[in-house]
C-alpha cells in the first residue's frame, strides 16, 4: 500500500500525500505550485486552455499525451511526468513550437496560447509516426478554442514547427526520463486519506473489486472527463474516489480473430486505431469524439458506463452487437450492451459492480456497417443525432442484394441509446435496389422513436436526420458509396491512424 502520488516534475520526483480527492491537476499547478502559465478558460474540458503534456510510459513506449488539466484529478497523474508551458524554453531559447507561434502570429490576447503551445508540443513529438499535414493539425487542435485569431495562423505555426522529426531538449532527455519513470512503476495499491474521505487507486482487479464492494458509495473514475465536471461545474463533493487507471488488466486490448475487447481503462486515443481497423466509420467517429485532450483521458468503458443518451460509442457498439463484461465482488457476468441501458440515468449495474470489459465482434461474411455523427458544431461537440447500421446481405452480389439481418441503433433519439427494432424488422427481406420498400422501412423509424426538442436540435430535425442517415447507409451499402456521399463536414475525411 502506498499513501502518496508520485510524479516527475522538472527533473525531480515529487510526492503528494495529503491531497484532497477532488483536487484537480490545474488547481494543483496554478494554486499549489503557483505555476500560472497554464490557463483556465472553462474548467469543463471544452476549451483546451489548460492543456499540459503528460510524458509517460505506455507499456514500453514513452509517449507525450496532451490532456486537459482542469478536469483531471491530481491523483490520476501518478507515475507521469508533467510538462507545462513554462518548461519548454531553455536558456532563453524558445522551443521550435513557441518560435513558430511567435513568427506566424499565433496569438492575440494570448490566453489560449499556452494550451495551443502544449497541444502542438505533443504533436511535435509525434511527427515521427506520421507526417504532420493540415488535416492532422486540424484534428489535433479540435479541442482548443481561440476567440481571437481565427485559427489560421495557429495551423500555419503547427505546420511550420512540426515539419521535421522531433529534435529538441526533450528528445535528448528521453533515456533518462524513461529510466526514472520506469523506477516509479510499482504494483502497490494507492490509498490516500481515511475510510470516509479518500483517493484510491487499486493496482489489481481483485483489489478494485474488494474495495468497491466495501465502498459501493464511492465514485469510480476512469478518465474523469465526466466526473471532473461534477466537481468543477456541479460543485459536488466526492469524498470517496476510486481511480481505475492503475488496475492491472483493465488497460488490456485483446485483438482476436473474431472480436476485439477493450478493458475498462482503455482510452479512446488508444482504442482509436483498433476501432478504425474494424471499420472506417468507427475510426471517423472516434476522430470526431471530443478533441484530442479529452480522447487522451476518456475511456471506452466510461463512455458506456455513464449511461448518457448521447454518448457516441454506445449506438455504434450496440449495432455491432457488442457485449459488456461486469464484475461485482468476485462475481463476473456478461450481457448484451443494449440491455445495459434501462432508462434515462438508469443502467443495469448493481451497487459495487463495475464495468470490466467491452467485447466487439468482428464482421462475418456479408456484413456491412455504417455510422454517422451529426452535431451542431462540427468539431468537439456532442452528437445531436448519431446513427449506426449493421446489415447482413444474402449472396455475394451487393447490387440488388437481399437484407437478411439488420441491427440499427441511434443516439440522441431517446432517453437512452436504443435499437430501432421496428425498422430492423421492416428491413429484413427487403432488397437494396427496391427504393420503395426501403422507404417504407425508413418510415418505420417514426414508430421506433419520438425524439424531443432541445438545445441541440428540434424533434423534427432529429427524425428527419435519422431518416436521412438510414437512407444514406442503405445507399452506400448498396453500392452508391463514394467519398462524395460521406458526411464529412470538414474537408476530407482523414485516414485514421494512431493518434
Amino acid at each position, binding site marked *: 500500500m502506498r499513501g502518496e502520488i508520485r510524479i516527475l516534475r522538472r527533473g525531480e520526483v515529487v510526492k503528494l500525500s495529503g491531497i484532497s480527492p*477532488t*483536487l484537480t491537476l490545474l*488547481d494543483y499547478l*496554478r494554486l499549489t505550485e*503557483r505555476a*500560472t*502559465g497554464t*490557463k*483556465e*478558460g472553462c*474548467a*469543463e474540458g*471544452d*476549451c483546451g486552455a489548460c492543456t499540459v503534456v503528460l510524458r509517460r510510459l505506455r507499456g514500453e513506449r514513452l509517449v507525450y499525451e496532451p490532456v486537459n488539466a482542469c478536469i483531471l484529478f491530481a491523483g490520476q497523474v501518478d507515475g507521469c511526468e508533467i510538462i507545462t*508551458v*513554462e518548461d519548454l524554453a531553455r536558456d532563453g531559447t*524558445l522551443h521550435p513550437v*513557441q518560435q513558430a*507561434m*511567435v513568427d506566424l*502570429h*499565433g*496569438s*492575440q*490576447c*494570448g*490566453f489560449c*496560447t*499556452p494550451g495551443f503551445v502544449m497541444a502542438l508540443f505533443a504533436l511535435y513529438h509525434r511527427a515521427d509516426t506520421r507526417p504532420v499535414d493540415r488535416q492532422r493539425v*486540424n484534428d489535433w*487542435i479540435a479541442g482548443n*478554442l*481561440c*476567440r*481571437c*485569431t*481565427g*485559427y*489560421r*495562423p495557429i495551423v500555419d505555426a503547427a505546420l511550420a514547427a512540426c515539419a521535421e522529426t522531433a529534435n529538441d531538449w526533450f528528445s535528448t532527455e528521453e533515456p533518462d526520463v524513461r529510466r526514472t519513470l520506469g523506477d516509479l512503476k510499482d504494483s502497490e495499491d494507492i490509498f490516500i486519506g481515511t475510510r470516509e474521505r479518500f483517493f484510491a487507486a487499486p493496482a489489481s482487479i481483485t483489489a478494485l473489486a474488494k474495495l468497491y464492494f466495501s465502498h459501493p458509495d464511492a465514485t469510480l473514475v476512469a478518465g474523469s472527463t465526466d466526473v471532473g465536471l461534477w466537481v468543477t*461545474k456541479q*460543485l459536488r463533493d466526492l469524498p470517496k474516489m476510486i481511480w481505475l487507471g492503475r488496475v492491472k488488466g483493465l488497460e488490456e486490448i485483446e485483438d482476436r480473430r473474431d472480436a476485439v475487447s477493450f478493458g475498462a481503462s482503455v482510452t479512446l486515443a488508444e482504442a482509436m486505431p483498433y476501432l478504425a481497423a474494424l471499420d472506417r466509420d468507427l475510426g471517423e467517429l472516434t476522430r470526431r469524439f471530443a478533441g484530442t485532450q479529452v480522447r487522451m483521458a476518456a475511456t471506452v468503458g466510461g463512455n458506456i458506463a455513464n449511461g448518457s443518451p448521447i454518448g457516441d460509442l454506445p449506438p455504434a457498439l450496440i449495432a455491432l452487437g457488442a457485449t459488456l463484461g461486469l464484475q461485482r465482488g468476485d462475481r463476473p457476468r456478461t450481457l448484451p450492451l443494449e440491455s445495459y441501458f434501462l432508462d434515462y440515468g438508469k443502467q443495469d449495474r448493481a451497487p459495487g459492480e463495475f464495468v470490466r470489459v467491452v467485447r466487439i465482434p468482428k464482421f462475418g461474411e456479408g456484413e456491412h456497417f455504417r455510422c454517422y455523427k451529426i452535431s*451542431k*458544431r*462540427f*468539431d*468537439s*461537440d456532442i452528437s*445531436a443525432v448519431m446513427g449506426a447500421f449493421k446489415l447482413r446481405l444474402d449472396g455475394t452480389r451487393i447490387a440488388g442484394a437481399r437484407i437478411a439481418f439488420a441491427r440499427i441503433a441511434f443516439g440522441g433519439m431517446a432517453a437512452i441509446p436504443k435499437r430501432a427494432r421496428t425498422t430492423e424488422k421492416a428491413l429484413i427481406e427487403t432488397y437494396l435496389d427496391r427504393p420503395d420498400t426501403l422507404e417504407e422501412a425508413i418510415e418505420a423509424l417514426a414508430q421506433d422513436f419520438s425524439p424531443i426538442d432541445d*438545445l441541440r*436540435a428540434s424533434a423534427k*430535425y432529429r427524425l*428527419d*436526420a435519422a431518416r*436521412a442517415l438510414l437512407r444514406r447507409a442503405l445507399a452506400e451499402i448498396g453500392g452508391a458509396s463514394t467519398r*462524395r456521399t460521406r*458526411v464529412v*463536414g*470538414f*474537408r476530407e475525411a482523414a485516414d485514421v491512424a494512431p493518434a
Partner: protein
Amino acid sequence: MTRIGTPASRVDGRAKVTGAAKYAAEFEAENLAYGAVVSSRVAKGRVVGIDLRDALGVEGVIDVLTHENRPRMARSKKAYEDDIAPGGAPFRPLYDDKILYNAQPVALVLAEDWETARYAASLVRVDYEQEAHVTELESQRDEAFDAKNSPKPRGNAEKAFAAADVQHEAEYWLPIEHHNPMEMHAATVIYEGKGKLTIYDKTQGVQNSQAYVASVFRLKQDDVRVISQFVGGAFGSGLRPQYHLPLAVLGALALKRSVRLVLTRQQMFTFGYRPGTIQRVALGAKSGGTLDAIMHDALAMTSQYEDFTEHVTNWSGALYKCANARYGHKLARLDLATPIDMRAPGGATGVYALECAMDELAVALKLDPLELRLRCYSDRDQNEGIPFSSKKLRECYRQGADAFGWDKRNGAPRSMRDGSELVGWGMATGIWEAMQQKASARIVLTANGHAEVACAFTDIGPGTYTMMAQVAADRLGLPLENVTVKLGDSTLPQAPVEGGSWTAASAGNAIALACEGVRTQLVRFARKVANSPLADAKPDDAALVDGRIVSKQDSSCSVSIPDAMRAANKERIEQEATAESNDDGKHARYTHSAIFAEVKIDEELRIVRVTRIVNAVAAGRIINPKTARSQILGGVVFGLGMALHEETQVDHRLGRIVNHNLAEYHVPANADVHDIEVIFVDEPDEIINPLGVKGVGEIGVVGTAAAIANAIWHATGIRVRDLPVTVDKILG
C-alpha cells in the same frame, strides 16, 4: 527599423508563448484569500433570507458577504456610473435585497483557498420572494419605448416605399450573444494598508476601473491603482467595471486582506451581452436598381435599470444613396442584465439586417447583389449631409470580387453544386465608424538611444504594445527593439477604454505628437554641438532617422542622438502629449469592407460549411499589416460564429440562461474555419488624423454574418431571417 506600414511580429509574443504573460488572476500576494460568487436563482424579486450556517461551517471559510453584512458602499446611484455607463441607474452588486436579473450576485464567499470557496458557495441557502418576470423580447413589442438615438428622417419614406416599383420588407432576428473571451473576468486586489489598494483587473480601461472603485468605496483616486498588462480577450465585456471588481474590493475591505475573485465560465453569462434584436427593414426601389425608400426599425432589449442603446439603424445612410429614409429604434425592458457593447456593437446587428435585405431586394430586382450595391453607392453620408474623409468601398468591391471570382456566380438559387453538396455564394458590405478619443502619451528618450513609450490604454489582444512601439520607432527613427512600451496601468498618461477600434488612432496620434516634441528638443540640442551641421536648423527642418537627427534638405548633415544629448548635457528627454480628434463635423469618418462568402451544404443533412471568405477592407493607413490581418481574420470568424452558432438561450419560464458554457454556447472551432483571404485596399486619408489611421478591430465582424446568410440562400433557396442559421432552420 520597423516603420509604420511594415509587418512586425508582436513584441509580446515571447511572453505569451512561454506562459510569462500574467493575467489578472495570476498575481501573488501574501495571505491571499479567495472569493466565490453565489448567484441568484430567480429573475426578479427580493432576497428574504440567507442561511450561511452550512457555508460558514466549512473549514477554511473566512466569511460570507451579503447585502446585510458587507462593508460600506456609496449609496447614490450616480457613484456607480462609469465612463461607458448608459443612461439609468447602474447595477450595484450586493447593495440591497433586490433581484434585478437571474444569476446576479447575491453573496460572496471568502475562503483560504479556491476549492473551499467554490464548494462553500454551493452551500449558501437563499430564500427569495419572487415576482413575475419578463425575458422574452417579442412579448414586449407593444411596451417598448423610443430610444431617441436614430438619425433624422429624410424625405418621405412611407410614401416613397408605397410608390416604389419593387418593394422588399422583412423582419430579421438576432439572438443574445455573449462575448466569451477565453479569460474569465477576474480581479486580484492587493490590500496595501493605509487605505491603499493595488488591483489587477481584467478590464478594457484601467482608469475607468480606478475611478469606479474610488467612487463606489469613497477612496482617494490616487490610493487606487489598477493594473491590467495582459487581458485575455474581452470584445467589449471589459468596457465597464463588471461585478467581479467591486466584489473583490468589498472582500478585501471586509477582511483587510488581499483577495482574488475569478468568475466561472457560467458566470461569464451573468452580465453584459449583445442585445437580442428584432429589426424590420423595408426597401423600395426603382426597377433599374436604385433606392427610393429605406425604413429601418429596431426593437432591442435592455434591462430594467439602464437604457442600453447602440447605433443599429443608421448604416444605410452612409452606404446607399436614397432620398427618402426613416429610422426607428425602440427599447424593451426585460428582467435581464444590461447589455454591453460587443465587437462592432450596433453595426454587426444593423448591417446584418440591412445587407440581407439588400440581397433580397437584388433577387426581387433580378440584379446581381454586387451590381445593386454599386448602383446605390453613396458618395456622401446622407444622415449628416457631408462627404467622407475617405471611402474606398468601390475598390473593396472590385478587389474582393476579383479575388473571389464573383463574376462566375450563377445568380439562380440551387444552381451551383459540388458533388452532393449545394454551393452558395453571397456577399455583403461592411461599415464601421473610424473614431478617435482624447488620449495622452509619454515618451522618455535616453541618451543611449532607447525610448520608453507610455499610455494607460490596455491591450486586450489586438497588439497595442506592438502598435505603440511601432509608431514610436517610426517617428523617433529607432529600431523596434530600442522601444519599450508601458501600458495598462492607471498611473500612466490618460487613456480611455480600449474599444470602438479607436486605440490605434487615439494612442498612435498621441505618440506621434509626443515624438514631435522630442524631435523639436533634439534639434535644439543638435544645434549646440560644436561645429554642428545643423547649427541653423529649425525643428521642422530635420527628421529622426536611424538614431540621428538628419537635415531634410541635405541628408549628409546630421547629428547622432547621443551627441546632441551630450551637447545639451541631458541624460533623458521626456515629452508628454495629448491628441484629440480633429473632427469638425465636415467629414464623415468610416471604415468599409466588402465580404464574399462561399458555403457548401449537404443537401440531405443541411450541414453548412463556410468554405471560403474574401474580405476586402478599406481602413485608412495600416500601421502593421501582420497584426491588422489578424484582427480581420479574427473578426471574420467572430462573424461566422454569429451566422452559424452563437445564441444565448433563455428559458423564459425561469428567466434563466440555460446554455451558459462553452459546450453549449458554441464559439467557432478550428474546423469551422476554412480559407479566409484578407485584402487591405490602399486608402490614403489626409483628413482623418495626422497618421491617417482608422482602426481595424471591429470592421471584420460587420457584414460577415449577412454574407454567409446570403450564401446559404443562394445554395438552398431558403431564406433564414433569424440568426444563427442552424440546420433545423434550413429544412426546406
